[in-house]
């Protein structure tokens, strides 16, 4: 009885989390513009997306930014995690603290701080500033994922590579990197989703010259609900679902 109750409770919470999303996906196939009733299956809303020029452009921009920023953040973050793990340098502890602070601090604070910084140094708000901002907020997630993995290493492996005559770069390239690979890939995937979905930081760090999908959706939703947005949201949900599942499998595999 107790067990049935606790299972029932779990199911209830999962329903609460997933019913709205399932409804959204189902409605994206509903053949009606206004009614809430089911009027038959259609793919026309998805077709409409493909012919919507500005929307497709924002989608392309989002993809470019997500791929570029998560790749750069992964390279930087992996190097940073390894440097913090292996080397003792001035500013090591404080760098690590700043990484945690930037991960925990509300997005809006990061958004406005970067906005002020970009304006002050004279960068015009657009693609470049957006890219820099996205790399910055993805970075801590890569550092934390990779650091968790590298700090679980048997440090003798690194020592023996050095004893056998490997340079630092050679040791990193041929010994550490392969062992870190699942964490590196997971970090990339998480950065990719973060970048693709971000609203708040993008809101402050890009302008009309370079529109991205979440901001486009945001402004469309403010004007009202359209079935095209259902289709678009369903696609974005699917992308997160796939990337997050892959990242999760990567992390689960490395913990085995």
């Amino acid at each position, binding site marked *: 009885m107790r067990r049935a109750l606790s299972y029932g409770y779990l199911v209830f919470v999962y329903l609460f989390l997933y019913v709205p999303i399932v409804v959204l996906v189902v409605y994206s196939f509903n053949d009606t513009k206004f009614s809430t009733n089911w009027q038959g299956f259609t793919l026309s809303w998805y077709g409409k997306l493909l012919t919507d020029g500005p929307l497709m452009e924002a989608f392309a921009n989002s993809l470019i930014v997500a791929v570029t920023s998560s790749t750069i953040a992964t390279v930087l973050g992996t190097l940073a995690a390894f440097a913090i793990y292996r080397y003792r340098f001035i500013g090591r502890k404080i*760098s690590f603290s700043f990484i945690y602070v930037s991960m925990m601090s509300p997005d809006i604070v990061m958004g406005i*701080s970067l906005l002020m910084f970009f304006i002050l140094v004279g960068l015009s708000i657009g693609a470049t500033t957006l890219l820099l901002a996205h790399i910055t907020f993805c970075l801590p997630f890569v550092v934390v994922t990779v650091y968790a993995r590298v700090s679980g290493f048997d440090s003798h492996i690194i020592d023996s590579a050095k004893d056998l005559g490997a340079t630092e770069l050679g040791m990193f390239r041929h010994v550490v990197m392969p062992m870190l690979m699942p964490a590196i890939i997971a970090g990339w995937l998480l950065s990719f989703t973060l970048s693709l979905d971000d609203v708040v930081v993008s*809101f402050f760090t890009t302008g009309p010259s370079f529109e991205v999908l979440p901001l486009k959706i945001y402004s469309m939703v403010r004007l009202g609900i359209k079935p095209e947005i259902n289709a678009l949201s369903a696609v974005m949900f699917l992308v997160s679902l796939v990337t997050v599942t892959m990242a999760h499998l990567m992390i689960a595999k490395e913990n085995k």
Partner: protein
Amino acid sequence: MRFRNVAVVLTLVWITLFVAVPYLLVVLFSFLTPNPAGTVTYTFTLESYRQIFSPVFLTVCKSSFTLALGTSALTLLVAYPFAFFLARIPENIRRTLILLMIIPFWTSSLIRTYALIILLKANGIINSFLLSAGWIDEPLGILYTQTAVFIGLVYTLLPFMILPLYASIQKLDMRLIEASRDLGARGWHIFFHIVLPLTMPGIIAGSTMVFLPALGLFYIPDLLGGARSMLMGNFIKDQFLTTGNWPLGSAASVLLTILMFLMLGWYFAVSRRANQGDMKELA
């Protein structure tokens, strides 16, 4: 040692340039004078901090804090038993269930907020269902109210309470509960004196991850609430985009950041204390 230098320098440069300097700018600008043309005038003043105690901002603060506290309390109430039951599920099913919790954790909260609109709107699913069931005579006007904002915050932030709580509850050493039972402790006594103190770090971690975004996620009231419902996030956003008062927006951001440090400090203090009672530490 070329590789070492490259790794260290890149780390330091990026963090200094794009994390440390921008944050320090926020602090610096909060002490400067607003310039109506946007940006700031470089004259030192405490005016922004004085304005933070003005009735306008205090009203925003009060409503935003009430909402964030309510959101934290409700998500905690829902999440605690959830995380507890989840930790008891057989491993093979549990792995899938955890993934099902991680997915909404990472999915865009904009899209999840939008999904709520479809459910809550006047001719949305909930109203259609209630009307056709005959339970209500006219559609409930939930959307564009404070209630909708509250539902939206709870819905978006629930996974952020569940995951840290689960991490902490899962680590709970069941032998401690058995031992206390052997020593004659019962029910609520065990919960309040053993389970709760040991899972406190998870509670605070979850609350931090819910409370801070609940103050800042400006697009949730923008999409779900009427014009009156405002979060601190909306206030900050307006200072930068509408009013052009950077120092005031910065001062409010500094306030948010101080709050974050307080919560993180609380977390570290409590998790250190909870670890002292850990059996592994005693053994």
